[in-house]
């Protein structure tokens, strides 16, 4: 740490004034107390400081709460910030809590993937894509609030449209839907299928 900085102001290369140590500590306290992901805007409102101060504080906290030497990481999830245990300790934390790990069947994961990438999507579209009835598993995902009803499609029968929820982003540690890994490009079947048996 450089000596030029006053003791109560933490250095930041991109902002000459830095951010007050008090703000950093307050942001840390609020994120911890909130439990659920809390947005930068909300933190700024509660602390009555500039959005930029909160951003700098989070940047600093994030650099502290990361890496192999920390058991708790500061993560960006569902458009907010949340303290989470480091993934390497998953098994030990489970053992201590005496919980069973959150399980999702492959069918559930497939449906989540279809809804996540194609939302809003109707039940019929999910069924057609998977080639199998998805009603029961979809209902369970609705009960677990990972999928939500997002209105009705303007077509005959007015079927319900489904979307992923904030809980989905939280469960899979995603800041937003935009953070989903890109879906692999469609591979077009070769059009020479017919040519291959021209001589039949």
């Amino acid at each position, binding site marked *: 740490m450089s000596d030029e900085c006053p003791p109560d102001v933490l250095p930041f290369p991109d902002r000459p004034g830095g951010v007050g140590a008090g703000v950093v500590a307050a942001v840390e306290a609020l994120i*911890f107390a*909130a*439990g*659920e992901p809390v947005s930068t805007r909300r933190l700024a409102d509660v602390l009555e400081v500039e959005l930029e101060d909160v951003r700098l504080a989070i940047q600093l906290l994030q650099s502290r709460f990361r890496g192999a030497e920390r058991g708790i990481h500061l*993560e960006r999830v569902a458009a907010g910030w*949340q*303290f*989470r*245990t480091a*993934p390497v300790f*998953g098994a030990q*934390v*489970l053992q201590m*809590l005496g*919980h069973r*790990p*959150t*399980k*999702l069947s*492959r*069918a559930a*994961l*497939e449906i*989540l*993937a279809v809804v*996540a*990438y194609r939302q809003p999507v109707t039940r019929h579209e999910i069924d057609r*894509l*998977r*080639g*199998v*009835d998805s009603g029961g598993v979809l209902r369970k995902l*609705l009960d677990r*609030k990972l999928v939500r*009803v*997002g*209105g*009705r499609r303007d077509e005959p029968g*007015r079927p*319900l449209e489904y979307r992923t929820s904030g809980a989905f982003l*939280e*469960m*899979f*540690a995603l800041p937003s839907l935009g953070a*989903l*890994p890109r*879906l*692999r490009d*469609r*591979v*077009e*079947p*070769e*059009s*020479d*299928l*017919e040519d*291959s*048996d021209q001589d*039949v």
Partner: protein
Amino acid sequence: MADVASARWTVHTEVFDGPLDLLLYLAKRDGIDLKRLAVAVIADSYLAYLDRMRDLNLSVAGDYLVMAATLVHLKSLELLPRLPTVVEDTDEDPRQALALQLAEYARYREAADALQDRPRVGRDVFVRSPAARDKGEDLVAPMDAFGLLDLYYDLLGAAEEPEPILELEASGPDFRGCCERVLDALDAAGGRGELGQLLGSLALRSTRVITFLAVLEIARLGWLGLTQTTHLGPVEMVLQSPRADVDLDAISGWVEASGE
């Protein structure tokens, strides 16, 4: 591998998540290129596999049989010489349609695998438990169906005031209107209210019943939480999202669809 058929065997898990899943597995196992789907080969493997599932006493769902029929049909097309005119008329090769469907399914299977590998809350990473997130409210338990049923019978029986002899209403109580009134009442009261109180404020039994159904429907769609602090105690309704976000079309659509 082939002689596993034994009476003692009962297989509980669903081995494949549908016919497309099975087809993908077979294509991978037999090294069939999805882009040039060799229908004859894959149809034979598929049918052989269905036989094996029957040997294992796995019930073969209808979806699998539909796919078997499709494959046999495609195979028959391949065996029969086609008239040139017919080829011109069909704008799409049915085999290509199946190959497309499989390829599309495979993309989402990969996406599902990617989700499976992400750090997951409750499996790999942990956040502060909901108990620690107690919002300083009374300890509440979610309502169960029996509590709601009791309430429903209470409200049916509570028709002390005589029903009016002549009812002059332009139209009968409508479901959508009841939904709106429930939401407006909750919104006006800061997003929460008590179910018994709400129903008690309604004079007509028919309106009470429809309002009760409206509450159930709104809760079912996740916009309303129902909680009860004590056994047989008052039922607290809490709006789960701002009034403006509630899509009434989604709520009342099924009533219109079923021809109310």
